[in-house]
């Protein structure tokens, strides 16, 4: 990402009323998110498609999703969206994580009407994208992750009744705005199986890194708000999506550890151990 894009985004933010010094909120690959005062501007991944339709969903459900400030624009060949700044979940205060509220937002999202023409949700696609990249060849965890990935069914999301799905739910996707929690980041939102929105916490629970009480709180709140993704034994539906997201997370952990030239920590090791167990199962 060049300095030129930063200046362009800063200018967009200032035009939208942002006052103050620009700050980079997120930068990875070719995605850049910047904040200027009360305005956040995002330059989306190159090759992003369907963003207009996704942002329209946010505009239609401002009680669940942070609503955009104006339409998506194309600047220097990149799609740029403009948002009000929200307050993220504080990673230093685990007791304050709004698990129940997150579950409620997802349960309600899953019950809203599916607008025609919305693309598929991208969670399963992201799994394949991450595993299609090179993993550190010399790392002992790489073959463990690869073997688990090879044991996944080739089609991660079979066709079936579709609902409105966030597609990339994690705690970084919650912000507080005007006194209420909202979901952000619509790049992977779409039609699909809502169980994918529960699959990342499920994977962390099953890997032993998310406390069973927290998982139960999240699950109970989701069900309590009429969540559509689950009936009966939650693992009937969660099994494959949670395996897939455990493997995706493990792959990222290995890459991050190698990039940062450090050993895997206990949580990352737990994810690799999970891959080992998944890879030992009979093929799906």
């Amino acid at each position, binding site marked *: 990402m060049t300095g030129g894009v930063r200046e362009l985004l800063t200018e967009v933010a200032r035009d939208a009323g942002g006052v103050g010094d620009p700050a980079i909120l997120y930068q990875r690959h070719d995605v850049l998110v910047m904040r200027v005062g009360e305005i956040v501007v995002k330059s989306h991944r190159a090759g992003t498609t369907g963003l207009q339709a996704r942002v329209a969903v946010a505009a239609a459900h401002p009680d669940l999703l942070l609503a955009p400030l104006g339409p998506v624009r194309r600047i220097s060949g990149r799609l740029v969206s403009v948002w009000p700044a929200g307050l993220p979940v504080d990673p230093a205060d685990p007791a304050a994580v709004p698990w129940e509220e997150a579950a409620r937002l997802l349960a309600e999202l899953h019950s809203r009407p599916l607008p025609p023409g919305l693309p598929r949700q991208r969670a399963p696609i992201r799994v394949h994208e991450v595993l299609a990249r090179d993993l550190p060849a010399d790392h002992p965890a790489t073959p463990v992750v690869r073997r688990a990935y090879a044991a996944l069914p080739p089609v991660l999301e079979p066709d079936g009744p579709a609902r409105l799905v966030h597609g990339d739910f994690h705690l970084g996707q919650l912000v507080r705005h005007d006194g209420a929690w909202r979901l952000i980041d619509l790049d992977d939102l779409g039609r699909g199986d809502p169980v994918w929105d529960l699959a990342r916490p499920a994977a962390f629970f099953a*890997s032993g890194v998310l406390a069973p009480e927290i998982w139960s709180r999240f699950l109970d709140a989701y069900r309590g708000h009429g969540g559509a993704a689950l009936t009966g034994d939650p693992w009937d539906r969660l099994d494959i999506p949670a395996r897939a997201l455990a493997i995706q997370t493990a792959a990222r952990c290995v890459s991050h550890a190698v990039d940062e030239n450090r050993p895997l920590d206990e949580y990352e090791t737990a994810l690799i151990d999970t891959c080992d167990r998944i890879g030992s199962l009979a093929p799906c």
Partner: protein
Amino acid sequence: MLQCPKCRGTMRTFDRNGVHIEQCEMCRGIFLDYGELETLARIESQWRQATPPPPAAAPGWAAPPAQQVVHHHHPRHHGGSLFGMLFST
């Protein structure tokens, strides 16, 4: 009487769940005969199975309880990689 290999104190014999263990009166260190640790572990796991907390359902590939690295309620590693994982794609 056995002598403690660590502090030279006197070891006393106790019966715990039918297993004889020697414990030092001075440093409280414990000496186990061959196989006794396994026996205690087995008794411990039988006790756990006999009084299970209501468990959250989990898939066949889930971590066994002994391998869980969660820090109940309040992860001590906040700001570390656990929250890095929970907060990113």
